[in-house]
């Protein structure tokens, strides 16, 4: 057995290149990016498990006989199928989603510039902050009668409720996100000549992006809730999902009520999972804020 083995213990290890400094040793190594398939599977696991869990508990509760009026998941699914066959489900979904998207777009077009004004001008901030905060705390259910009295039972009153629900939260969110941009980054930008509008474009907005996305997501949620409330309480010529919920209540049909609640919930979850979460993840990942 040879006693001296002069070959390097760890094969062809070359010493690190120190020519540009010793800190080559402490550079963080980039984590390996998993494949799209693996990521999708991983991402889908938790929600699927959660759904299975909820459905199981629901089914057991229905079977147990403790809640005699509670319909089973299958009965609710039947109800949804019936809505679909009767040609009620898809138009209602279309109406509600259409209103939600239009209302959200309008709320963004109003709320974001308003937020920028509040952020930029001290006087506007002093006057509007308490007003916006107050409106933010007002439940949509209290706004609906107001809107109906003002505009009648119409699309206009539905939209005004959505706007009043979403705009204050969007504006306040924009202000909060911009306020949180670190002073150091502002100074660095200013020193490079990013002043005025260029400061917004090159420093403030990109730096505030994670907060701005969270703001949009919250604005959407507020708008969606307000819309459901409005559809539930008022009757527009073209019914939405909220109308189905109201019909279920009028007909005292537990299964129909459950079906529409499930529908409203599913839309919320899907929009979150398919729109906001991916965008947010992408932004955070690029900044090294996601592990």
């Amino acid at each position: 057995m040879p006693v001296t083995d002069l070959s390097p213990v760890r094969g062809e290890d070359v010493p690190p290149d120190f020519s540009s400094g010793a800190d080559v040793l402490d550079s963080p190594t980039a984590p390996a990016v998993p494949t799209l398939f693996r990521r999708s599977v991983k991402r889908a696991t938790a929600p699927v498990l959660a759904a299975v869990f909820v459905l199981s508990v629901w089914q057991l509760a229905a079977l147990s006989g403790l809640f005699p009026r509670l319909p089973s998941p299958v009965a609710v699914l039947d109800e949804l199928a019936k809505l679909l066959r009767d040609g009620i489900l898809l138009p209602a979904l279309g109406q509600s989603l259409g209103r939600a998207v239009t209302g959200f777009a309008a709320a963004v077009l109003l709320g974001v510039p308003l937020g920028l004004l509040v952020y930029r001008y001290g006087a506007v901030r002093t006057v509007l902050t308490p007003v916006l905060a107050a409106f933010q705390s007002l439940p949509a259910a209290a706004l609906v009668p107001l809107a109906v009295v003002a505009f009648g039972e119409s699309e206009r009153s539905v939209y005004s409720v959505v706007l009043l629900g979403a705009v204050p939260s969007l504006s306040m969110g924009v202000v909060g996100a911009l306020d949180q941009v670190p002073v150091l980054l502002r100074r660095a930008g200013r020193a490079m000549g990013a002043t005025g509008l260029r400061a917004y474009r090159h420093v403030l907005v990109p730096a505030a992006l994670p907060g701005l996305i969270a703001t949009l997501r919250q604005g959407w949620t507020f708008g969606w809730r307000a819309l459901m409330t409005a559809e539930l309480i008022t009757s527009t010529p073209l019914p939405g999902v909220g109308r189905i919920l109201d019909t279920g209540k009028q007909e005292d049909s537990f299964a129909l009520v459950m079906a529409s609640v499930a529908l409203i919930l599913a839309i919320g979850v899907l929009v979150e999972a398919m729109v906001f979460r991916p965008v947010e993840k992408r932004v955070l990942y690029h900044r090294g804020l996601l592990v």
Partner: protein
Amino acid sequence: MSPATTAAVRLTGATKTFGDALVLDGIDLEVAPGEFLCLLGASGCGKSTLLNLLAGLDRPSSGQVSSGAGRPALMFQDHALFPWLTAGRNVELALQLAGTADRAERRAEAARLLGLVRLGDAYGKRVHTLSGGMRQRVALARALAQGSDLLLMDEPFAALDALTRDVLHEVLIGVWERRRPSVVFVTHDIREAVRLGTRVVLLSSRPGRIAREWRVGIPHPRRAEDATLLGLAREISRDLREEVCRHARD
């Protein structure tokens, strides 16, 4: 030409107070074109405050700042890079804001500057994937990208290991010798000051005043073990210690 316009930047009787605290008191300081000025002082003596006045990021409570050069380039102790951009795009943004309109030209120049700080292969890397020293080098490249005749640096290498700091000193001196910007380099490290500066200015504490200054005539590249440099460092450290002790007694 009046002397006011020949200086890269000049403070005249500048004071700065924060609330009741007098931080800077009657500072007269003129930075000549092409000089490498090291501003030395204990922690909290007002070095950053002074640099912010020179940078125009802050205004003196009284006295004047007059700047002969254009917008100065600034480098902080913290890299202050934008985390939503890659290393290369950070440098490109500085070029864009300084007026380089052509995209391809910006790319090429940014790559060249990264090469200059020996980060040629870091162009597409995200800030958070770089080590502290690499980030600081990107920050240096970004500052150089402004093409300013005045480079203001606030303890830029204070958080780096000695070996990396050595490399960056060489890079910085190399750039300075080639382009001859005026540099104001804030540090609390005496050896760093005498290694780099053509002039070393010592700031006293509470309030910050200019206590003393030295000219360093030794040409670059300077050897760390140069006897004159070592002697100067000893002398400065004696003065600095006196400054600190004087305050410990107060």
